[in-house]
């Protein structure tokens, strides 16, 4: 009886330890993810003048965003995700004297994943609600979420993306610090979090010890595409930047539609190249 009892206690130990000891010898390869920006096909840099409409040139001074939940999917509707990055802060505010850095873009840290064939990449623009509930004080020094530059306490939300700059509405060649010429988008709050599944033209094949590079390129001009007549008086498919050039905090404010639209445009503005 004693023996049996002992066995009773010891047996599970064996089972547990044997589970531990039986590591699936995983065959892995590396995936690098890189993000960069363009403006209507041209390399994007801050301080560079770009054509917005035939009447208005724009110049940006800051452009950055949080990305989250980046993962690989084996097939389109797969619920199994291979995580590449949980959260990262991507700053693409390279000035015209940093053209090389702008061309190189921002590298997320390289991730080891099981080798195999993947057919889709999932990416979140902004932060999902569970992360957005936290605040900078919750994170250690150096963490992407520890910065006070991208937290808006009165909305209890991180600023998912900042797009700042100027539009030369009166065409006088000067980007003025004025109500209508400043562009001040600080996009945030749970409502505007955007997730997208991107399909590469060819499946992503991660070979043993091989390295695959996934390059995501965001067209900043496409972020301003809007079809609502209120916000596109000229009906050229682009936000009427003369009159709508800053974020709303109140999600019930009709103008919040602009914030919502810009964030959801990240989906269509982002192209995946291998």
């Amino acid at each position: 009886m004693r023996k049996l009892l002992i066995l009773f206690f010891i047996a599970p130990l064996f089972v547990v330890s044997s589970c531990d000891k039986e590591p699936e010898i995983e065959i892995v390869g590396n995936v690098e993810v890189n993000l960069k920006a363009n403006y209507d096909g041209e390399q994007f840099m801050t301080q560079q003048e770009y054509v917005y409409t035939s009447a208005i040139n724009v110049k940006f001074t800051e452009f950055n965003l949080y990305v989250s939940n980046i993962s690989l999917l084996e097939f389109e509707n797969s619920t199994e995700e291979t995580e590449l990055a949980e959260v990262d802060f991507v700053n693409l505010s390279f000035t015209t004297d940093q053209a090389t850095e702008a061309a190189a873009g921002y590298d997320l840290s390289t991730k080891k994943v099981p080798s195999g064939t993947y057919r889709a990449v999932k990416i979140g623009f902004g932060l999902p609600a569970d992360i957005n509930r936290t605040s900078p004080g919750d994170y250690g020094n150096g963490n992407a979420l520890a910065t006070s530059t991208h937290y808006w306490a009165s909305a209890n939300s991180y600023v998912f993306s900042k797009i700042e700059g100027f539009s030369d509405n009166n065409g006088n060649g000067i980007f003025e610090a004025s109500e209508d010429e400043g562009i001040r988008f600080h996009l945030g709050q749970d409502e505007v979090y955007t997730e997208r599944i991107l399909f590469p033209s060819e499946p992503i094949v991660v070979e043993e010890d091989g390295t695959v590079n996934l390059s995501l390129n965001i067209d900043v001009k496409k972020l301003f595409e809007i079809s609502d007549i209120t916000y596109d008086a000229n009906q050229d498919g682009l936000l009427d930047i003369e009159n709508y050039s800053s974020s709303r905090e109140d999600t019930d404010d009709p103008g919040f539609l602009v914030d919502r639209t810009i964030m959801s445009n990240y989906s269509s503005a982002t192209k995946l190249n291998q």
Partner: protein
Amino acid sequence: MIRNLLVSTLLIFIIAAGCKEVSSFQEPLDLSQIAYHPNPVPIKVPKGFPQLPLVNKNPQTEEGIALGRKLFHDPILSADSTMSCASCHFAHLAMTDGKALSKGIDQKEGLRSAMSLVNVAFYNEGFFWDGRVKSLEEQALLPVEDSIELHNSWDQLVDKLRTHPEYPVYFRKAFGIDSVAQIDKYMAANAMAQFEKTLISANSRYDQIERGEEEYTPDEKAGYEIFFDDSKELPDGECGHCHNVPLMTTNEFLNNGITYAEKASDFPDLGRGGFTGSQFDNGKFRVPSLRNIALTAPYMHDGRFKTLEEVVDHYASGGHYSPSVSPLIKPLNLDETQKRQLIAFLNTLTDLKFVQETQQSEVY
């Protein structure tokens, strides 16, 4: 052969004598009998404040802080023994000097206004208005030799510290050195940095209200809402984008439109650009914290505004054009009541308890 030997013996003597001269100090006084029991004093991070780096190369101890506090306030630091750090960083002015531009021992005016040292433990984007210095330890080395500040030399100062009746014991207790000859400028700077990191202010009326202990008056509340763009009825002041919680600064380098400049090269003080060399940074300065702002007049890097009324008038007007001005600067459409309300909110950022405690611990 014998001649050779003689010459080399002589040479050795000369070298040895030379060596002795180099270490100018006569008798390396032994300190090893004095007790060395440093008491660690970790920095208490107020709730909601940024966490500090896990690795601290200059850990705080009671003894290190005591030495740093003594040095910070001691005119021994200046060439003519008239000024110390505390001559430009007064506790009752929230660690500023009340002057537009600071003056050093030779009565020469510097180019910039003294900065508040409140909550410096939490800054990591570079110190000074242009962010040119990486750490407090590095910073504390500079004023001593700056010709428009203490205009001393570290060699002289270190000699004075080594022969001083009190300092050797302080250094021993703080850093465990065995002889006075080991006292050097880096230890002195580390100690001052340890002291500066104790200057934590998180008990203003604003903080008490945030903690639910107090409530805003209607004016303060309206001011808060203007500051943080938090009301549909009131104009957006946009202040919080740059002077964000909890430190009331994001520590970014930005241009808040106080200087007109047609071209990037026109700024009288290039600010950040003078350090980075990028024309796009010309005219940008580190966003200062607004904690205790009512105590730190005059305002801006060159002290150009005497009062908070002048500051608010500046922002309300939309400021001046320059190539690096931030898009967040624009005319604000504030009426006189709203300006007053904004200032009422700024006044809630004063932490008198911090001031009193710091004043009480001042040593002269």
